[in-house]
Each structure stands twice: as C-alpha cells, then as structure tokens.
C-alpha cells in the first residue's frame, strides 16, 4: 500500500497574506508530492509498505537515507498543513494553553522560545513543540528529521511543527526568516494542536 499525498485542508490562498498561494502550490504540489513519491519508491517491495509512517520513523536508523529523508518529509508536511488554518492564530485556550503556561511560564515565553528555535536552526530544518513525558518541549531538527526518529536528539510526540526550509518562505520573505516565523503565529490552528496534544497524552 502506497502512502498518499494528503489533500490540503484549505485552498492554496487560504493562509494569505501570511503564506502566499504561490508558495503553498509549489510546497504542497511539488515538494510534499516529491517526498511522498520518493518514499513510496524507497520502500517498494519491502515489509515497510505495510507499516504506518510513525512506526517506520521510530527505527529509521536501521533504514536507508532515502527512507529517513523522504519518510521525514512526508510525515512533517502532513503535520504542518494541519496545524495551520485561515482565521486562526491568537493564544491557545484549553489544555494546550494550560500546559504551555505550566511548561514555559507564559504564552509569550513559549512564543519567544519557539521562534528562537526556528530562527537559529542553521540550514534546512524544522522547529517543534513536542510532548515528552507529559511535558511540553520546544526544539528543532535538521533537514527532514523529526522527534519521532530514533536518531533525533529532540524526542517526543510532535503537536506543532514549523518548516524552516527556505522553500517554505523564500518566494514571499526571501532572507527574512524571522518575519515568516512571526507571521506563522497568525495561522496556527490551536484547535488541531489541542487534538494532537490529547492523542499524544492518550
């Protein structure tokens, strides 16, 4: 069974003006589609075909770089699209809001920590909010690695992800990564992050 490129849960232009339609179209239609196809190519005919992506990533150190890179790219973008939405952003309520305050002191301290993680990742990569042992942790990973992977320094269940590969923002923001990061907070779908938290806590 092949992995499928998920449909975007909104139109290409739905996140304007923070993320432009042109970027969304190439990012989803070319980059994410590329990772999906290459992942399918890399696992074709192996027992991995029958496994959920999370299980593949968990033992990725035993697998080829193609599975690590494309499996990560497939999973990371799946999560990324769903944690954004039009008419979203603001400060989280519910359990996420409470746990953010408990883990980081306040929402603004969380925001600063997450933004720094995203801005200071040198080269290509991702910033994450993960649940580890009932606590929230912020960090980043290089390239298409993620916190589910056994090779990752940052460990946990991802509930929020921000893509800081240049392809995620270059058409609109060019070298201004910090501005892209600031605007990401206007499209965070906290309702989905709350759901992700609940499933992570089981």
């Amino acid at each position, binding site marked *: 069974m092949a992995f499928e490129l998920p449909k975007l849960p909104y139109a290409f232009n739905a996140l304007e003006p923070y993320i432009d339609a042109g970027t969304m179209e*190439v990012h989803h239609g*070319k*980059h994410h589609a*590329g990772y999906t196809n290459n992942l399918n190519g890399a696992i074709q005919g192996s027992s991995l075909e029958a496994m959920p992506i999370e299980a593949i990533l968990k033992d990725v150190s035993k697998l080829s*770089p193609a599975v690590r*890179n494309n499996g990560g790219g497939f999973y990371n973008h799946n999560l990324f699209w769903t944690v954004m939405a039009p008419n979203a952003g603001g400060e989280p309520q519910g359990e996420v809001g409470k746990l953010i305050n408990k883990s980081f002191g306040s929402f603004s301290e969380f925001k600063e920590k997450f933004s720094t993680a995203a801005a200071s990742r*040198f*080269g*290509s*990569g991702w910033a994450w909010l993960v649940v580890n042992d009932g606590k929230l942790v912020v960090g980043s990973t*290089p*390239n*298409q690695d993620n916190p589910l992977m056994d090779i990752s320094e940052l460990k946990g269940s991802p509930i929020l992800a921000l893509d800081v*590969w*240049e*392809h995620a923002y*270059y*058409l609109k923001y*060019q*070298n201004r990564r910090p501005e892209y990061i600031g605007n990401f907070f206007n499209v965070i779908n906290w309702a989905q992050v709350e759901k992700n938290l609940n499933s992570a806590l089981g």
Partner: protein
Amino acid sequence: MKHELPKLPYALEDLAPVISSQTLEFHYGKHHQAYVNNLNNLIVGTKFENADLETIVREADGGIFNNGAQVWNHTFYFSAFSPKPKAAPAGKLAEAIIADFGSFEQFKEAFAKAAATLFGSGWAWLVKDAYGHLEIVQESNAGNPLRTGLTPLLTCDVWEHAYYLDYQNKRPDYIQEFWSIVDWSVVEYRFGK
C-alpha cells in the same frame, strides 16, 4: 580583523537569465552580507578576532565557523562566474579532468549528480587532493573541503536561496544552467596555484 563583503566582478544583472539580478540582490546583498556582519560581531573578544578568514574556516566551530565558512564559500562561488566565461577547461586542468573522470562530460554529470542529491542545504565541490588528483565532494550547510586538507577549485551553492526565486523546486534545472556561467579560466588558475 574586520571582514568585508568583496565586490562582485560583474553587475547584478550580468548573469541573467541563469541567475537573475533579483536572486543576486538577495544572495549577495543580503545573505552574503549577513554572514560578513554576523562573523564580525561573533569574533569580537575571541581568539579569532585577528585571524584571517581561511584560519577561521579551518579551525573555528559553531557560529563563527558557520558564518566564516559561508563568507568564504560565497566569495568563492560568486568569483567563478562571468557573463563571458571560458566555456571549457584547457591545458593541465583539462588533462586532469580526463584522467580522473574520463571526459569533461562525465565530470559534469558526476558534479551535477552530487549537487542534485545533496539533501538539505549545502555545496557541491570540485577539489584537488594533496597528490593533485581531482575529486567531487558534497558538504552540508556551511561545510568546506579545506577542513579535510583538500583544495577547492569550483563550487555550486545548493542552498535553496541560491535558486529558489528563479527555479523553485527545480534544482536540476539550476545546476544545468550553472555550467553556462562558470568561467573555466578562473578554475584553471585555482588548479595551477
């Protein structure tokens, strides 16, 4: 010492359509400049404060290495281009390319593959080893072959910022067009040094 952004040996619009003036405006004017500025800020009060750039590339770590190597790499990358390039290597470099890769075409194919398959941000390099043999190496992020005792001859920047405005996800197209602005007289000079 204070590091400076070197002048480009051509105008911003001279490499179009291979590399647009808009790309160069950001790549040279913003990215390269930012690495210079960051480096100058980071070395204050460290043992690299008075070091030359090559020493920093060879010996530094962390942010000083990242920014210092990116200054070096970009200067090296930009200075191999010309709007009126020598289109193919001649003389001893041409002989070395044939000896080590079979032909100029086979070299280009191997170099293009290294540039296309480097995952994430980084650089593809043509280098000379201590015995004068040529090799192709890939380096991630700010990586630089001087660190492993190799002599760089040519590099292709495959950070997405090098090509995204002009080619978006089509990195192989950028690499293919890259050949038409490489000035082989520059690479010959580097090889002969």
